[in-house]
């Protein structure tokens, strides 16, 4: 099980690479510019939803971006402790940026 952290905007090829390599049971945490992929109604959000991975955004980054109020369904908001908790549950992390 892999925790994927995404720290680049949805137009960046790294998001596509992440999506094609997500495995069932993996989790995905959106950070920094990655949070825009959680915008309700966006193409990226639809692709994320279809991936079947557990989806999370980091609260401070989502709030800074104005994404927190327009969050796609199924994306949960986590704080720094929640980020650490994800690394406890998922033994390895792949950083996409």
């Amino acid at each position: 099980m892999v925790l994927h952290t995404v720290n680049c905007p949805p137009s960046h090829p790294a998001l596509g690479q992440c999506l094609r390599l997500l495995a069932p049971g993996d989790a995905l945490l959106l950070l920094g510019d990655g949070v825009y992929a959680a915008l309700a109604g966006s193409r990226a959000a639809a692709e994320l939803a279809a991936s079947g991975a557990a989806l999370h955004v980091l609260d401070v980054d989502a709030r800074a971006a104005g994404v927190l109020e327009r969050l796609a369904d199924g994306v949960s908001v986590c704080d720094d402790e929640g980020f650490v908790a994800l690394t406890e549950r998922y033994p390895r992390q792949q950083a996409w940026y």
Partner: protein
Amino acid sequence: MNYALLVLASPFSGTGSLTAARFAEAALGRGHHIARVFFLDQGVGAGMATAVSPQGEADPVARWADLAARHDLELVLCVSSALKRGLLDDTEAARYEREAHTVHPAFEIGGLGLLVEATAQADRVVTFGGSA
């Protein structure tokens, strides 16, 4: 658990470096140990003593230094990444015959072997990248 953190993100662009600092604090708060924070590539800017942040905004260098002081954290800047970005401590300044010492005392300069060692000892390794 024992964590090793690899920070590649610049503290001067994007959020990666501060995210890493907050992560470190939260991990310690949950009772974990942090073997070492290794700064590589653009990440080494976190140790730049001469960086001045705008008033009212986060100062990543001070943030890391404060964290290190409170938790006895080991912060290591990769020597080759540091040198080419003008980050020198006393030893390297003497070695390369430069006047300026620009590394904040909360940080040390070290080789990649320290990343290798931390990775080998850690239960968890977390990488913090920035936009490249």
